[in-house]
């Protein structure tokens, strides 16, 4: 085991103490959840072995999480859920849609704020805690089967500590027309709260689902969110996923999404990251059978002291799969950005077509970007390309606009906006697209004011 510094050991021990308390609070007797208790204990043991990562770990080379490890906080108690009214939640929802929505406040399910309307036959949309209580066989067979905590401290923490989250099950041959939103709100009051939301999504064969996972905050406080989302996409299913991260700018957000894909399915995800003080997102997709299409896109816009880290893994485990990846980022102020995209092409995963691109725009002399597009290829009949660019706005384009009577600032804004909104225009949920465009606009305007 690696030697840890004093503070790192303290941080680890604090979590381990918390786990013992947490474990003692769990129901002890019978009712079929001993598997869960075992799972939590294993995860906690793994966490004990791993400890918190340092910048000496290759996966965390550019992201120093010591402020997170040293954050003294506690899980919010369920009572705080009462504090919010429907009108508080309203601005974060997908307006104008007969929404299907689960709302979580500080990590707890808020039934009063949620709306599950009328679901197609067989579809289950509930809190994960409820699904576990009802001993759902789907939960039992899928939970923690994909997001491995073997080498990821924060997944181990989540697995040990998670209390609630969303559970979505879509049976075979079912189409859910309305987008489903999972809304995680943190009220961020005086004391720092820590939440480990856990989501499990299972899409049956030939099903179609659109999901929006939103993380927002009503205050500007410090807190730590550590969500883990597992997505299982079965044969020939079509899944559209959106992750919207608009956490407070004092918040810590470490998220992991693990996607398991079956034959001929399609999975597309867009991650929009605007918030957080330290934000890290691991999006991992395993193409476990043939004929799969997988897209992982992302947009990030950070300024001030923000730190954003996107890690992706495209694991081509089987032949004949196509993957697409396109991440675009804008960095202003003293913001730091990290991108690490891995493409694995396993032995015999022939006829793989993998494309990856990471574009970055640095707007300030103090912004920093570290990018590492990585390919690991073990098969010969493949097409893999990746590219990364870092630069400024195109002077020619600015000149073109100025020649047409648009002033310099406005020309810049237009081009910056276009740089990021390229990916946003693909969003098919109209209210979400508008909401994010608006958010982008507001933030760019604010950043410009700070610069001036």
């Amino acid at each position, binding site marked *: 085991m690696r030697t840890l510094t004093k503070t790192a050991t303290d941080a680890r021990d604090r979590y381990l103490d918390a786990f013992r308390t947490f474990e003692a609070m769990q129901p002890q007797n019978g009712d079929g959840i001993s598997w869960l208790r075992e799972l939590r204990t294993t995860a906690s043991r793994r966490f004990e072995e791993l400890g918190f990562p340092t910048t000496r770990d290759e996966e965390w080379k550019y992201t120093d999480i010591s402020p997170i490890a040293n954050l003294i906080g506690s899980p919010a108690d369920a009572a705080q859920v009462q504090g919010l009214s429907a009108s508080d939640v309203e601005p974060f929802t997908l307006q104008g849609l007969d929404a299907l929505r689960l709302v979580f406040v500080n990590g707890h399910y808020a039934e009063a704020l949620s709306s599950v309307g009328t679901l197609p036959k067989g579809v289950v949309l509930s809190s994960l805690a409820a699904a576990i209580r009802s001993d759902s066989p789907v939960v039992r067979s899928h939970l923690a089967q994909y997001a491995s905590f073997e080498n990821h401290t924060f997944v181990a923490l989540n697995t040990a500590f998670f209390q609630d989250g969303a559970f979505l099950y879509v049976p075979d041959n079912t189409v859910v027309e309305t987008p489903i939103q999972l809304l995680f709100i943190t009220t961020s009051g005086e004391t720092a709260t820590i939440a480990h939301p856990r989501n499990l999504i299972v899409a049956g064969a030939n099903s179609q689902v659109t999901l929006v996972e939103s993380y927002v905050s009503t205050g500007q406080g410090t807190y730590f969110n550590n969500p883990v989302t597992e997505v299982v996409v079965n044969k020939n299913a079509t899944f559209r996923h959106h992750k919207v991260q608009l956490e407070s700018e004092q918040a810590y957000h470490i998220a992991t999404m693990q996607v398991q894909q079956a034959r001929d399915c399609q999975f597309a995800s867009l991650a929009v990251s605007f918030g957080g003080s330290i934000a890290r997102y691991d999006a991992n997709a395993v193409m476990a059978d043939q004929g799969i299409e997988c897209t992982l896109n992302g947009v990030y816009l950070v300024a001030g002291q923000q730190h954003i880290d996107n890690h992706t893994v495209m694991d081509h485990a089987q032949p004949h799969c196509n993957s697409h990846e396109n991440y675009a980022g804008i960095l202003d102020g003293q913001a730091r950005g990290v991108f690490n995209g891995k493409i694995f092409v396993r032995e015999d995963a022939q006829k793989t077509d993998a494309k990856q691109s990471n574009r970055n725009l640095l707007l300030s002399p103090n912004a920093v970007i570290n990018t590492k597009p*990585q390919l690991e290829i073990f098969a010969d009949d493949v097409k893999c390309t990746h590219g990364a660019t870092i630069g400024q706005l195109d002077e020619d384009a600015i000149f073109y606009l100025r020649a047409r009577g648009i002033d310099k600032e406005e020309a810049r804004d237009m081009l910056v906006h276009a740089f990021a909104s390229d990916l946003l225009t693909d969003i098919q949920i109209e209210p979400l697209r508008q909401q994010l465009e608006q958010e982008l606009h507001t933030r760019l305007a604010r950043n410009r004011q700070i610069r001036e």
Partner: protein
Amino acid sequence: MSTDTNTIEQLATQEYKYGFFTDIEAETVPRGLNEDIVRMISAKKNEPEFMLEWRLKAFRHWQTLEEPAWANVHYPQIDFENIIYYSAPKPKKQLNSLDEVDPELLETFNKLGISLDEQKRLTGVAVDAVFDSVSVATTFKDKLAELGIIFCSFSEAVQNHPDLVRKYMGSVVPYTDNFYAALNSAVFSDGSFCYIPPGVRCPMELSTYFRINAVDTGQFERTLLIADEGGYVSYLEGCTAPMRDTNQLHAAVVEIVALDNAQVKYSTVQNWYPGDKEGKGGIYNFVTKRGKCAGVNSKISWTQVETGSAITWKYPGVILQGDNSIGEFYSVAVTNNFQQADTGTKMIHIGKNTRSTIVSKGISAGRGQNSYRGLVRVLKNAEGARNFSQCDSLLIGDRCGAHTFPYIEVRNPSARVEHEASTSKVGEDQIFYCNQRGISTEDAVSMIVNGFCKEVFRELPMEFAVEAQKLLSISLEGSVG
């Protein structure tokens, strides 16, 4: 696919062409490494006090270090106590002309195809041949001396030009740099030294030929190249080793300093013994190479063709310190059978308007594993820095691997950094096209691979370009179906 596999097996049996062992009595020190050995090496070479101190400092630092494990290569633990750190051909006496060189040694060079006389007469290449750590003879020395160019073995430089050595040794690769650089600094035996005075353009290609001969000797050579203001030099390095079953360690250090308006072009062709087709034996090539563009408008260009070694682990880099300086890296790395290569470059942009170009071509065949690992770092004050990187991989056979680990760190908004990479195989349609026109599959592949590497070969000096193409076809012979 079955025909592919058959041909691979059939033709991957190509034996190592340079595998012969010259029976020359060698003077060696006992196995193992401790301060006494370091002192012994220094004493044998009759070095001034500052060299010994430097070696000891490096050795003490080395003892505090751990062997790095981050590279994407796998090999059994090296026992540093079981290596002979110094081996010099005997008798070792002052040599005045080629006639005095041991005829057997000359024969070895003839087998290698770099006969000193031949080269001297025909090609006008000045060769400094390093045979198991000691520089044997340096051709054309006098002619170069007329221009004020110093081109000699490192030991001679230590004796005759201690000020230059003292000033520049360790200025680019300090002994604290990494595990192998520290080891090299402690025990390095010899190498080449070159100084180009201000305003001088070296009229010929300088060249060193390294050859590892004795069993179990690590070759720790150290090369130092200095181009003073407005100087220009093109330097070639070639390497071979005889066939040996135990793995031999090679941990060299190359330092290049380019002052104002100076240009250095450094070309390497490395075809050390790669091990047999079961992956047994071969050279471990753990090398630290770095250049520093210390002056304004200076330029350092690395070109490497890596076809040999069981394991290659090297990252020739350039520190772009002077404003408007240029760094270039052109590389072809070939891995066949069980060879592993983890190679790339580091471009550190410090000065304003610095530019760097990286072109890396990796070819994997058999069970070879080829990694490109590169770092492009633009520091905060590197206004207007520009980088273009391209790393392409070609896969031949379905049991090899190609990996890319580019690190890009940018701290200046005016920087423009582009990285592109692609991976592909030799297309069946391309081969079919050639076959149709009466070109055999083997020739077709050779053509396609050569085309793939053309951008890099173009950068090599004429003599090397021809050799590189030949080497490439030898290393890949039969690995294609």
